């Protein structure tokens, strides 16, 4: 039998065992069994296995199973739902991020960088490494905008992880408890 035919036969056998064969494939498999004794034997073997496995069913442990498990449990699940230390640490970090963002925004809005519009950035140690001298100009505020954006994103992540998520989880659990 060619590799392609073998693969088709295997697929057909799977569908046959799982009861998902269409009429055409059923007829094809029956023809094949009539022509090839090895295929017939294989179908019979698989049928036997399939029926035996189906008959195996679920097994039952000893009657004291639950009792043993409950006796082995610690008093309460290990992780507290509202870890106070973690919340305070994250809240302090969040305050820091928001303070930095606030300061930068205040500087920008007070035109603190109005006089310094262009910054020449020169590659350091260019002489030492034998690199050609080159530099590029960047407006100061275009350096600061990404810093503000990163701070805002960081702030939101911290707010979500540190305060909102534990708070909602805590509320959900206590509602279920009541």
């Amino acid at each position, binding site marked *: 039998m060619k590799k392609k035919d073998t693969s088709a036969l295997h697929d057909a056998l799977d569908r046959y065992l799982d009861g998902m064969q269409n009429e055409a494939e059923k007829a094809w498999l029956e023809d094949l069994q009539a022509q090839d004794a090895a295929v017939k034997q*294989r179908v019979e073997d698989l049928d036997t296995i399939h029926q035996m*496995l189906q008959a195996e069913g679920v097994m039952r442990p000893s009657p004291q199973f639950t009792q043993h498990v409950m006796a082995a449990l610690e008093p309460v699940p290990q992780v507290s739902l509202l870890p106070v230390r973690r919340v305070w640490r994250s809240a302090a970090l969040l305050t820091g991020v928001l303070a930095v963002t606030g300061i930068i925004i205040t500087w920008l809005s007070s035109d603190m960088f109005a006089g310094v519009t262009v910054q020449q950035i020169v590659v350091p140690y260019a002489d030492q490494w034998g690199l050609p001298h080159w530099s590029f100009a960047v407006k100061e505020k275009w350096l600061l905008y990404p810093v503000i954006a990163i701070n805002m994103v960081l702030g939101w992540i911290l707010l979500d992880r540190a305060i909102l998520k534990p708070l909602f989880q805590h509320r959900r*659990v206590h509602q279920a408890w009541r």
Partner: protein
Amino acid sequence: MITDPDHVLLDRILAGDQQVYAVLVDKYQAYAYTIAWKVLQRSAEAEEAAQDSFVKAYRHLASFNRQSKFSTWLYRIVFNTALGYRRKNQPTYYSMDGHPAVPAAAEGTLEKMDKHKYVTLAMERLNEADRTALTLFYLQEFSLEEIAVITDLPANTIKVRIHRARLRLAEELRTLLKQEALTL
């Protein structure tokens, strides 16, 4: 997050009502034990592994992210715990053809065995992953996707393993029957 009625029970357990966990243990002990037994093939060890899995699940209940059903998460713990027990406690003997060998005592009693025992013996000759995929599939409690989550393998791989395991099982059964015929 998926909808699972067990999640309400989990909330109560996490809020301090430890006794509610007994409801979950009662509900899932049979499947947990069956999975452990299929991996370990020994009753006492399977029961210990299944109990150990429930204790582990309880200990890590707060970190369960509820992206799957509780039962799927639990069975994954059972499967991994049973594999750990097997690696630790049960040596596997390999015959010359690379298949796990039939223990001598079992070989001597082959002729007395019924169909169920032949299947069990043939199953022992499959590798762990194929045997587990086949077992979970035939327990009819699990979809291919759930089996994939429990065993940490893609669903397509599970499909292939089930297919391959059925063929291998048929071959192993034939070999066992031939061996029995030769001993008569």
